[in-house]
């Protein structure tokens, strides 16, 4: 275990050094991230310029959902997507062989191979939006509420990561799919609104199949003290199921991998 912690540290350090090498790029990317954050507000501002509540969510409450969305999106872009792109590249060039030969868990190695520190301001921005939403709502979340929300956030990161491993495994079969990362990010975009705006089949889809509700809506509800025990149980179940699925699919895919060079 301690070995893996040390390994993680080495990998993060390498990514940081690489990113800081391109200083101008690094600064510009940080700035564009802030710019994008601002653009996600536009629809909300236009909607709440006319309404006080949408499907039971007021503006401050929607800000909480948006805050969790921004945090997770930055995690996705800073810690998950860069490695995804790297794995797809490895598979195409056949260099995945070198990773598989290394004396550590291959899933761990590919998952931590690349981090993009320019997404870090986005995480801070997301927490800023959360604080702003709470201030507007005039609510100090309870200790239980905060703990639950943080636990849900951790579960959300785990589910995101597991979905990602499943997506990567698709790259073993459909070799030239560089843009899977974009597809993944664009589906995740639906998490920016409270899940109640989706009705019918989409509501089921985004709650159970791609559990976006768990990622942003439920943590917001936890902060508001509106989340019941049933939802908590469902969240635990979903996180567990996705973690299991991700690991299984990865092991099966690596088992089928035949390398590009031989």
């Amino acid at each position, binding site marked *: 275990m301690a070995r893996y912690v040390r390994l993680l540290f080495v990998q993060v350090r390498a990514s940081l050094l690489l990113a800081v090498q391109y200083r101008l790029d690094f600064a510009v990317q940080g700035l*564009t991230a802030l710019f994008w954050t601002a653009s996600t507000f536009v629809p909300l501002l236009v909607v709440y310029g006319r309404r006080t509540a949408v499907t039971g969510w007021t503006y401050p409450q929607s800000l909480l959902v948006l805050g969790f969305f921004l945090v997770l999106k930055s995690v996705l872009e800073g810690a998950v997507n860069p490695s995804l792109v790297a794995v797809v590249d490895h598979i195409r060039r056949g260099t995945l062989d070198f990773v598989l030969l290394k004396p550590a868990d291959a899933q761990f190695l590919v998952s931590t191979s690349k981090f993009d520190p320019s997404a870090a301001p986005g995480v801070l921005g997301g927490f800023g939006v959360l604080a702003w939403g709470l201030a507007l709502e005039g609510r100090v979340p309870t200790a239980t509420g905060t703990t639950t929300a943080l636990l849900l956030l951790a579960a959300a990161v785990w589910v995101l990561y597991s979905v990602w491993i499943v997506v990567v495994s698709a790259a073993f079969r459909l070799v030239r799919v560089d843009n899977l990362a974009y597809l993944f990010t664009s*589906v995740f975009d639906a998490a920016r609104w409270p899940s109640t*705006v989706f*009705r019918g089949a989409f509501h089921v889809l985004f709650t159970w199949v791609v559990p976006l509700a768990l990622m942003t809506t439920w943590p917001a509800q936890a902060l508001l003290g509106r989340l019941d025990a049933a939802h908590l149980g469902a969240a635990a179940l979903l996180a567990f199921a996705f973690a299991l699925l991700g690991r299984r699919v990865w092991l099966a895919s690596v088992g089928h991998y035949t390398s590009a060079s031989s």
Partner: protein
Amino acid sequence: MRRFADLSRALLRAGFAESLAYRAEFLVWILTTNLPLVNLALWSAVAHEAPVEGWQGADFAVYYLATLVVRHLTGAWVVWALTSDIRRGDLAQKLLKPVHPLWVLAAENISALPVRAVVAVPFALLLLHAAGPDRLASGVLPWFAAALMIALAWTMTFLVMAIIGTCSFFVESAYSLFEVWSGLFMVFSGYLVPLQLFPEWLREAGRYLPFRLMLSLPVETMLGRIGGAEIAEGLALQAAWVAVLWLALRAFWRAGLRRWAAYGG
């Protein structure tokens, strides 16, 4: 002239074959364009409770579906292709060929349009289904104008992307520049929110900017939301922007090539 026509035909055929060869990648790429549907979900929830300034749920559905159709038909990927050519030095080889590299890129992007159109068809059918006759423009003229607008919008997209790609001659990474452009585009083109729902002053601010002309204008025309005078004005503005962008691209390209030294020879 004849040679030019033969050349163009060959380029288009090659590009079309390529877009079919990498169909899985292409399809995934196209599927990433779903932000309009996400915004549609929000607005239809809002309109479900009560109409917004006369916009009902169906109006939003029609609007965002039309947005998707236009977006698919005006897509291009010049920024990525050009930036990578310049960075890796592949451009050196392309410059040796007896065709202008930008013309090759244009042919590649145009020849992907049939495949893009196939993807746009289901959305278009959904659009027709959701709209019924009273939410679409009637008569031949608006539709003819809309087709022309989409062609001009595609040209504008191509030119802007080529200009941003050409910036890689001067700066480290043109991608960041393009992200800034995309952010502005999302807000001012009507991609996120129909421009009609914007406050008056913001709408006025975006009136002569290229963004609205590249998306909202053809959409408004298809939905019959604007009349003859505005259609004519829109087309004129589009043509003016195409001319300006064309001149800018030429200047950038020449200045850039003079600076450029390919790596690896």
